């Protein structure tokens, strides 16, 4: 074929595929709403869409299908537009269908792939393809088997995964042995037995496919255990992998932090199930539910490291900081004070203080027309429009506006990294911080492990992202919270009054005994002055016992510091909830 002919041929094929689009949608339902696929005339343009290896792929984030027509021709499947398009549509409307289900699917599969979790997207793609193709072949009457036969003409593979997979289709579609897969001589009784189990699994879980995912992964596990087998399998399947990265660019998905109990319960090896007969499916536990176990409140949450790994697998572009923020935010949510129902209105009795320019983003009703007209008779909104500003009436704001809060956390060497391991201090700080922000207060967060390093927000902030980003970081230096840190916000009397919460342990007394190298001021003095300048309630949350450092504690109490003892880290959460309730719930007044 010369270039011109080739081009003409491609055009005909494109038209044929375009014409088949409606039919492919109708296979599923006349009401399917999906945009037409992105048709790529060359493999190079397909690459730009992120499609490599296969001739088709899906993206859940923008509900798209991408087709590489050059590859379609190359693989000889140009005559099966309805089959292939209907298959891709299947990923969008059947499995995994959306970002959330895709995420849950991967998370369930991961539980079953001990030490080879990296293979979860591959397993998920294979599982979804089995479900979709079985539906299309048996219930919708499409010729999926023919597509496989066409592609397999290029030769059979030695990959056991491939043999298992093809044998499963043979079982599902009652095809002769070897119709799709390996020649008789190559067949292994093991593969045969497993494929038979897989076929019955696919039929049983066609509707509740998420429940079958763990079983499928368990079935496939021995085939993927060895790197070499897996690599070989990837080579054969690369052509079919159209949904491995379906979740790419999908943004935050909530609900994955909590351990999926239902998912864990469905982690059963079908071999065990079959061997015991369906009656005795106490087969669960094979995978060591306990060891995989949860962290955080009531041990209900994933380990943060695992959470990040999972999410990165769902969406390799996910930002680690965003993930870790979300992790602690989600765990904190049930412990936050409820949203304030009444809004405080500090301007109601406030005194006008002057004017400043009104910006296009300000509410329309704030424009002071008279002032504006005084400035210029010609009005250009956002350029010369003016608004009146009000100074708050101090009495009023003191009674109604919640106080800001400063949260200082000991992040010294003895602290675990909150990214590797759930951290109670970080959760406690998140609960207080988010409660305060919800109530309309500002928050300053500070991690300190001194002598050594510290990290803090740039003053008191209104953004939960800024606050969480600091709180979830890790230093692991020094031995205690560095008292001189208090100088930054409270070296001078604070403009807005603020509560001070410091979470630390016994080592703080060693720190208090020290004297600042630069100023020569004792940390005791700094501690006292800070509380006075803050003007709010000061609480030292001590991981310690009341009988230790009694004298020093009395000294702190005389300064006005409250000392809250915790003997285990879980109590930090009760403290945080209590503190938030007292200071930031709707009915409280400071």
């Amino acid at each position: 074929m010369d270039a011109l002919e080739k081009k003409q041929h491609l055009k005909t094929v494109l038209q044929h595929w375009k014409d088949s689009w409606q039919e492919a949608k109708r296979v599923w339902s006349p009401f399917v709403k999906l945009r037409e696929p992105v048709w790529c005339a060359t493999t190079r343009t397909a690459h730009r869409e992120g499609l490599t290896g296969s001739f088709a792929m899906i993206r859940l984030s923008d509900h798209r299908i991408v087709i590489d027509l050059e590859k379609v021709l190359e693989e000889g499947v140009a005559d099966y537009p309805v089959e292939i398009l209907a298959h891709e549509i299947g990923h969008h409307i059947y499995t995994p269908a959306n970002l959330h289900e895709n995420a849950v699917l991967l998370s369930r599969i991961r539980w079953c792939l001990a030490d080879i979790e990296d293979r979860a997207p591959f397993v998920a793609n294979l599982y979804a393809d089995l479900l979709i193709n079985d539906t299309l072949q048996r219930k919708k009457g499409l010729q999926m088997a023919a597509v496989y036969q066409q592609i397999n003409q290029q030769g059979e593979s030695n990959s056991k995964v491939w043999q298992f997979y093809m044998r499963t289709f043979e079982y599902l579609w009652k095809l002769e042995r070897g119709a799709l897969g390996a020649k008789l001589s190559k067949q292994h009784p093991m593969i045969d037995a497993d494929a038979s189990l897989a076929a019955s699994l696919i039929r049983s879980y066609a509707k509740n496919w998420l429940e079958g995912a763990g079983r499928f992964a368990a079935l496939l596990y021995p085939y993927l255990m060895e790197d070499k087998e897996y690599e070989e399998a990837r080579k054969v399947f690369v052509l079919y992998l159209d949904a491995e990265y379906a979740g790419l660019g999908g943004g935050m998905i909530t609900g994955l932090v909590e351990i999926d109990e239902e998912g864990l319960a469905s982690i059963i090896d079908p071999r065990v199930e079959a061997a015991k007969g369906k009656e005795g499916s106490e087969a669960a536990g094979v995978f060591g539910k306990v060891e995989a176990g949860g962290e955080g409140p009531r041990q209900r949450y994933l380990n943060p490291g695992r959470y990040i790994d999972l999410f990165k697998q769902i969406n390799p572009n996910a930002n680690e900081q965003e993930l870790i923020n979300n992790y602690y935010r989600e765990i904190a949510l049930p412990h936050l004070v409820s949203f304030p129902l009444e809004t405080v209105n500090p301007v109601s009795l406030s005194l006008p203080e002057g004017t400043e320019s009104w910006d296009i983003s300000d509410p329309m009703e704030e424009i002071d027309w008279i002032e504006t007209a005084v400035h210029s008779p010609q009005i250009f909104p956002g350029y010369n429009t003016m608004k009146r500003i009000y100074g708050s009436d101090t009495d009023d704001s003191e009674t109604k506006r919640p106080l800001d809060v400063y949260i200082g956390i000991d992040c010294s060497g003895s602290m675990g990294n909150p990214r590797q391991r759930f951290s109670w201090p970080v959760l406690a700080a998140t609960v207080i911080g988010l409660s305060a922000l919800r109530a309309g207060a500002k928050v300053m967060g500070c991690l300190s492990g001194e002598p050594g390093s510290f990290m803090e927000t740039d003053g008191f902030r209104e953004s939960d992202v800024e606050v969480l980003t600091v709180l979830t970081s890790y230093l692991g230096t020094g031995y205690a919270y560095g008292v001189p840190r208090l100088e930054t916000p409270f070296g001078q009397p604070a403009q807005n009054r603020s509560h001070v919460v410091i979470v630390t342990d016994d080592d703080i007394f060693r720190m208090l005994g020290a004297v600042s190298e630069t100023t020569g001021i004792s940390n005791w003095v700094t501690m006292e002055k800070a509380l006075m300048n803050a003007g709010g309630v000061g609480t030292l949350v001590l991981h310690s016992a009341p009988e230790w450092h009694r004298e020093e504690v009395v000294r702190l109490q005389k300064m006005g510091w409250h000392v809250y003892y915790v003997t285990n880290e879980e109590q930090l959460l009760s403290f945080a909830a209590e503190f938030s309730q007292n200071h930031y719930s709707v009915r409280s007044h400071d």
Partner: protein
Amino acid sequence: MIDIYTLFSHLKSCPEYFFQCPPLNRGQVSHTEVLLMDMYRKVHGDFSVADAALPTLVNLWQNGENQLVSMQVGCWLFHHPFFAGKPEWIIPIDDFLNDDLEALSAYVQAREWVEDEDRAEEFIRLALNRCEVTPAGETALEAADRLEALDTLKRQAVLRGSQASYDRIREIRRKMAEQKAREAANVYGRE
């Protein structure tokens, strides 16, 4: 000659009545026995045949409930007109119901013989094989291959061999992953 699909749809329509297994009362004829005798007479083709000419059912009470119900499902299968009036099949059917189903009942629940496609097909093929009937449209070789692919007992034997070693490997790998995580956790910040 009969094809698999005809018997398949017949088996699928097995009435609920055949799944019942009321407890045996002293002196009463069991539900299973009633169904069996009824079916054997139909296969024999002569309804007036004496009980003594049919397989003895004295040991029926020894079978577990799952096997009894499976046998009743078998009764439904052999009620298909294809088996009617073939007295030479009574012995093979008896073998199927007693020997084959006894072995299989340890692994397959009675309802699966009807509800699970592969098991239904296995049930039918096994029964036909006992009666030395090759399904329509298949060669004897094809039929044997198909039956072998569905063979629960054979699959069980394979699974028994593999399962224990997989369990151990999975356990080892889980421990390996745990250990590596633990080692990673042992790395602490600089103090």
